[in-house]
């Protein structure tokens, strides 16, 4: 028996719920309500983006700045909805074989690329070919033996071994397998010609300056939905053009929004938020859970190799102060490695979080045999939240008698240092996990598993119990079992102080008041956004 998944009006929820067990064939039903229609068409929107974009090759770039633009141009077979659950996008339906070693995707009909060519399974296969060759996260296809195109509307993936989480991995938006015309499959890395199937097509791209997109008139929305959801759903381009202008200076973004030169911006600095709220021409849109602020110990090097010492540090930390400094008071406290609004969120290990008990810390410190040696906190200034969090962590550690020092380098250097096996140069490494937690527990916990577990175990050999939980997260057949394994892994990691997640950061976006239906998400989405005349 084959188990099939489709997307109808109720299908997204069912789809996600059934991903683990794929219980039955779901019929593709008609949409229950009228699909979204643009209340007003036309207008040009200019969006101030904080980070530079070097390339729009979505297969070879994991940067947020590339994704912001490219995911308005490209689409994939499967993607994520508003709650980051997998949904079909260019696929109309997909089914898993009884032996779980094949996935058959039926493609939506009438889809064409921005160059006018109709999309067929040959294009999908060519896209997978390119991704397998140069895609940044081509490890997604490690368990894939190959793919076939039995007819122009069907694409089949054959697995070399069963991977219950395959659809979850395939629908990742971190570096998605976007579908491109077959004739572009040999484009060099970072040089992919920007032709997709999305509601907007690229008109002009000047690296370092701007990217201008225009409505793709032949776009066919996904009729299985009524509204846009996440990266997919029923999408329509109401605007004539959208221009992403690179404005790296926060004050310049705010000024641009005030004058109306920019109709939307990301990352409003905290000191400007209040003024923006009072401005009747501006709508402020906080985007909670943008990333998890985190520090990781080097467990290959004394004294952070000592569990008691790591627990002493854990007991000393007060998360409100750390997050306040890191985010300018734009944060949410939460335990662990998922955001509280996610289905896989668990507070397992909560007793280790936000203890802020100096006496207990000092007691644990004495038990650890700490002799006052310098403790190096590795951080950077490229990401201000990481530097500020490290600064407060240093003070809190000093308050309990730990001789904590900051080592400030730039981000590439700190990553390089943190990845060295058996390094003696640092004890704590500051980072931020954004995209992976949003993708789910599986994407996040790979940071804490071999190879390259971020707590840097001696000789790169992670804790066997943590690894066992990680293995269960990947191989258990049902979602419930995998979630239980995640809870076990989180609890182990927190109890053994292999990571110190401080809380999650809120990113503040804003648009002009006449910009309608702009909903903050992990990318600025311009489908179904319209300008009030």
């Amino acid at each position, binding site marked *: 028996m084959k188990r099939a998944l489709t997307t109808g009006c109720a299908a997204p929820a069912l789809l996600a719920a059934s991903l683990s067990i794929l219980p039955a064939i779901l019929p593709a039903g008609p949409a229950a309500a009228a699909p979204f229609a643009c209340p007003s068409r036309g207008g040009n929107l200019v969006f101030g983006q904080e980070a530079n974009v070097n390339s729009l090759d979505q297969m070879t770039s994991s940067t947020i700045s590339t994704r912001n633009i490219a995911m308005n141009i490209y689409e994939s077979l499967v993607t994520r909805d508003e709650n980051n659950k997998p949904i079909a996008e260019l696929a109309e339906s997909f089914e898993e074989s009884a032996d779980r070693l094949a996935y058959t995707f039926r493609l939506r009909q009438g889809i064409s690329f921005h160059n006018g060519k109709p999309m067929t399974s040959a294009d999908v296969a060519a896209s997978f070919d390119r991704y397998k060759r140069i895609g940044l996260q081509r490890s997604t296809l490690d368990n894939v033996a190959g793919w076939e195109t039995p007819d122009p509307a069907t694409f089949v993936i054959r697995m070399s071994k069963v991977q219950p989480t395959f659809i979850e991995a395939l629908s990742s938006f971190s570096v998605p397998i976007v579908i491109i015309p077959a004739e572009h499959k040999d484009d060099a*890395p970072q040089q992919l010609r920007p032709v997709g199937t999305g509601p907007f097509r690229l008109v002009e791209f000047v690296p370092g*300056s701007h990217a201008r997109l225009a409505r793709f008139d032949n776009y066919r929305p996904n009729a299985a939905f009524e509204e846009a959801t996440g990266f997919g759903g029923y999408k329509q381009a109401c605007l004539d053009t959208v221009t992403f202008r690179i404005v*790296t200076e926060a004050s310049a973004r705010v000024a641009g929004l005030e004058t109306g030169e920019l109709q939307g911006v990301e990352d409003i600095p905290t000191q400007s938020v209040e003024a923006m709220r009072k401005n009747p021409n501006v709508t402020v849109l906080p985007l909670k859970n943008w990333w998890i602020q985190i520090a990781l110990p080097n467990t290959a090097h004394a004294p952070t190799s000592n569990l008691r010492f790591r627990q002493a540090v854990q007991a000393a930390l007060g998360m409100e102060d750390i997050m306040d400094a890191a985010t300018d008071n734009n944060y949410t406290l939460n335990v662990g490695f998922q955001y509280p609004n996610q289905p896989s969120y668990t507070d397992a290990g909560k007793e280790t979080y936000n203890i802020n008990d100096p006496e207990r810390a000092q007691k644990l410190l004495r038990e650890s045999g700490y002799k006052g040696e310098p403790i190096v906190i590795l951080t950077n200034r*490229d990401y201000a939240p990481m530097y500020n969090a490290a600064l407060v962590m240093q003070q809190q550690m000093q308050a309990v008698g730990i001789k904590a020092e900051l080592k400030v380098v730039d981000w590439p*250097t700190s990553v*390089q*240092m943190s990845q060295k096996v058996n390094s003696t140069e640092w004890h704590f490494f500051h980072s931020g996990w954004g*995209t992976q937690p949003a993708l789910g527990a599986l994407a996040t916990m790979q940071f804490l598993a071999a190879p390259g577990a971020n707590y840097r175990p001696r000789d790169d050999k992670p804790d066997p119990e943590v690894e066992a939980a990680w293995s269960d997260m990947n191989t258990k057949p049902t979602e419930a079992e995998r979630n239980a394994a995640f809870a076990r892994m989180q609890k182990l990691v927190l109890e053994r102080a292999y990571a110190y997640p401080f809380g999650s950061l809120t990113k503040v976006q804003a648009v002009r008041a006449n910009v309608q239906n702009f909903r903050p998400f992990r990318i600025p989405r311009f489908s179904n956004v319209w300008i009030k005349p």
Partner: protein
Amino acid sequence: MIGVALRRVGSAVPVLLLVSLITFGMMRLIPGDPAAAIAGLSATQREIEQIRADLGLDEPFLMQLLHWYGGLLQGDLGRSILMGKGVVAVTFERLPVTLGLSAYALVLTLIIGLLAGIVAALRQNTAVDQLAMMFAMIGISVPNFFLGLLMIILFSVRLGWLPTGGYIPFTEDPLGWLRSSTMPAISLAMLQAGLLARITRSTMLEVMRQDYIRTARAKGLPARQVVFKHALANALIPITTVVGIIISLLLSGAVVTEALFSIPGIGGLLTQAVLNRDYPLVQGGLLLVTAFLVLVNIGIDMLYAFLDPRVRYE
């Protein structure tokens, strides 16, 4: 003269080779992993290692150096790691933007700096002199970033006269270019104008005390002729030297201004390349910018002979 120019160009070759070697070595000496920078914030170690292998960054230092000089001899400066395009193409996309902005700022610098310096010298120890030098001090003291922000608030947010940022190419819309480049050019020019005003003033004061100026005045020449034909012409040699330095400073100062006003110039490109350890782009881009500056300085040297016949290049 042509022979002199060719000899100067020839002598620039070792300079460029040395610059390229220093840049190559420095980029490898500083810690930091280009693969980590490309992979972004949320990359796993496995992905970073994969990128490193893809880019050939695991090759020995000497092999990388040989590849670099081998390519250089064939006019190939490599491909930008971040952008996937040829370094020459990427640099020549951005260099004209910065050169245009710097040229605009240079014109403002010369007008403001020379005028303020000459007026201050001619009205030494008067209120005009004090005002001009106060203006020069403000230009030198106020960081161009801060000045730029103040101008955005005044001319864009309050008055709505000029755009807050962005760039319009001159070839597309000359008036649009002027509007988008005016505030950046002023913020770049103010520091240099302040320096030039002070140097022009002191040079002019020295020249104005020379005997031949006194003689020219005694002969009854009009003041304008004394100042512009005799005094300024002789003061131009040190001023020209300073202008050569100012051109270099304008190019390097453009980094901050470009970031503030969202201008896609070479300053921002190279800064980003350094921060992301884009080795080929830093090496090639800096080499091209250095070559340009060497040419500017050769041009300034040639100008000496034109301005002062006493200077001989035999």
